[in-house]
């Protein structure tokens, strides 16, 4: 009842948040919500700033933040806490294929009827939509590009142009190597970072085979048998064979790699643009030395970026304070929510809420990312946002391929086997 009333009022008035606060908030005593976020620096900084700004507007609600590890350890924690009914009131977790694996209809609060849903871009709604067709989350952060972060100083010194096709990328890397610097930085100690050559290549895959995702979900196409999809695996091997990697690639972490990139020890680092916020935090003087370009494919004529959606914030069905939790999620999905995120860690990419704007000056890497979003046909969502099929062992497989232990063809075939388990676990037809 309150909900419908709030919604109608919102439709009439513009200040959705202020009104719903006034309607529901005034009557209640102080409530404390719990908020589980992953322990990445950016996520924690965002959560803290969001909570601070939210509490300032809602003095009757307190939010305490808990952190959890990211990666597969985090998946396990989220699944276990949901299954045992021990989940916090609100929590952040991946959108897309991983979202489907936490059984949203059974475990999460349906947010389909929330007034702020109208402000969320459809591209994001589609990745937090459960099989029942309802939306269950709001975006936590900005969209990211998956491609290559590069050092602009090295490019200027060597007179290089941003590559639009793979051959030019390799030629550029060779020139960097000839100049005594690292051509391509890799960081296999954080094995997930090795996946970028494969996952970031999806723009080129779907450019060659437009219905790849649908066929892939239905088990009608295999990566190992599809040259366009196999290219990502081969790229990693080519870079290794050409001896372009940093000497400590096998033991370097994400932070090591970003240091090498920012300080000009190396020229290219295949990565998601969220890492720009790490550079902002750790190497602020070098922030504008780091640019971004999409992972080039075979043809310069078809060049675009693979886009990652941010994680989403969800409300657990076991929460005893769902109304208050909804207010926080509504704040997150509003312009002040975006501003809080920008305030916390700078802008990392375009927001997925209507009306949200980026500050006038953004880091160079983000500025390089934005034009892809402003023209048509130069972005494509990563495969994990258009197909629920994602195998758990891709990071290890790509580490082996990118460090020459396993052939790309072998790695792709192994990954085809790997996704089969995930598809069966999700009960998809055709597997």
């Amino acid at each position, binding site marked *: 009842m309150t909900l419908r009333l709030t919604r109608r009022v919102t439709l009439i008035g513009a200040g959705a948040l202020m009104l719903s606060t006034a309607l529901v908030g005034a009557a209640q005593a102080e409530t404390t919500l719990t908020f589980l976020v992953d322990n990445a620096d950016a996520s924690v900084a965002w959560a803290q700033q969001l909570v601070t700004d939210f509490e300032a507007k809602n003095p009757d609600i307190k939010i305490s933040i808990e952190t959890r590890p990211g990666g*597969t*350890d985090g*998946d*396990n924690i989220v*699944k*276990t806490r*949901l*299954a045992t009914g021990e989940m916090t009131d609100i929590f952040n977790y991946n959108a897309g294929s991983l979202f489907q*694996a936490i*059984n949203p209809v*059974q*475990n999460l609060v349906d947010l389909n009827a929330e007034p702020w849903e109208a402000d969320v871009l459809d591209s994001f709604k589609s990745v937090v939509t459960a099989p029942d067709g309802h939306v269950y989350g709001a975006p936590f952060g900005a969209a990211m590009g998956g491609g290559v972060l590069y050092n602009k100083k090295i490019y200027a010194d060597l007179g290089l142009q941003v590559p639009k096709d793979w051959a030019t990328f390799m030629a550029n890397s060779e020139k960097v190597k000839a100049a005594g610097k690292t051509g391509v930085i890799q960081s*296999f100690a954080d*094995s997930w970072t090795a996946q970028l050559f494969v996952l970031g290549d999806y723009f080129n895959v779907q450019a060659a085979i437009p219905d790849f995702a649908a066929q892939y979900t239905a088990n009608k196409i295999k990566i190992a048998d599809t040259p366009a999809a196999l290219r990502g695996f081969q790229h990693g091997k080519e870079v290794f064979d050409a001896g372009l990697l940093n*000497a*400590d690639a*096998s*033991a370097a972490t994400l932070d090591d790699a970003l240091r090498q990139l920012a300080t000009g020890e190396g020229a290219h680092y295949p990565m998601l643009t969220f890492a720009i916020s790490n550079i902002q935090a750790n190497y602020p003087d070098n922030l504008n030395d780091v640019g971004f370009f999409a992972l080039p494919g075979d043809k310069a004529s078809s060049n675009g970026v693979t886009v990652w959606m941010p994680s989403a914030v969800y409300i657990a069905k076991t929460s005893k304070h769902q109304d208050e939790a909804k207010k926080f999620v509504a704040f997150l999905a509003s312009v002040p929510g975006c501003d809080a995120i920008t305030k916390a860690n700078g802008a990392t990419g375009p927001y997925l809420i209507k009306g949200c704007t980026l500050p006038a000056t953004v880091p160079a890497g983000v500025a390089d990312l934005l034009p892809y979003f402003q023209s048509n046909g130069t972005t494509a969502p990563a495969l994990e946002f258009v197909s629920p099929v994602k195998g*758990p*062992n891709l990071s*290890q*497989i790509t*580490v*082996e391929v990118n*460090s020459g*232990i*396993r052939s790309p063809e072998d790695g792709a075939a*192994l990954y085809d*086997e790997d996704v089969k*388990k*995930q598809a*069966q*676990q999700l*009960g998809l037809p055709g597997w």
Partner: protein
Amino acid sequence: MTDRLNAASAASQRVRSPYSNWFYLPAAIIFGTLFLLPTAASLFFSLTRWTLFDYEFIGLANFVQFFQEPFLVKGLINTLIYGVATSGLKVVLGLLIAVLLTSDVVARGYLRSVVFFPVLVSTVGVGITFTVMMHPTQGVINETLHFFGIKGPQWLSDPWLVLLSIAFVDVWKGVGLATVIYMAGIVSIPQDFYEASTIDGATGWQKFWNITLPLVRPATVTVVLLSLIGGLRSFDLIWAMTKGGPGFTSDVLASVVYKQYQAGFYGLSTAGNVVLFVLVGLIAVPLSIFFNRREIAL
């Protein structure tokens, strides 16, 4: 008093404990809820496709899938290599150090505690420390080698070397325990043997080969059994150092199963644990029967 005794003996001819069987109940409840119930549940869930939220009965498909896992064979081989390598090295090194530390060496007490010290340190801490020391470019090991003009190998990322590097760390950490067991064994050998052999003109090597080695056999059995079982179920050190990587090259059985849990294949990984249970049983039971028989013979 006598009435009750008579009544009790009349009621039953069986030998009866003076205590009620109900005294078993607390232990039975704890054993049942913490051991029997989970075992039965895991046997059941190993036959299902389980997401924690719901499950679907799929018969033996998990076991078929588990044995088809491409990493399983690699994990099995690695487990065996790791178990044999660590166990063998601990026997040899442990015995040598124990011989040294039971002789009249300078600062014997200090050296004994130094050898035993790594046993007391947390495994994960040791793993992280050695990971830093084995860093290919900035690690202290390769920097030292570089100082002497040698290009050090990629200790933890060369697929051929990684498992042996971890096994080395395991030995460094665990050899103290083997040494202590051997020292106890050596000290308990009566001095008469040595005195008699000295009179007969035996050399140090002959004494070691013909007296020490045969007579510390019970200690050897203990060390082999302990370190082999430890090696077969090893997980923490490997996980702390490489997480089974690079890729799958240092995966052992336990880390394969753990990764399946992480990936959310709960039914499959439970099936993996059932397999692990059977496997460890197949290795450990004959071994312990064999060694027990030997011990009686000794």
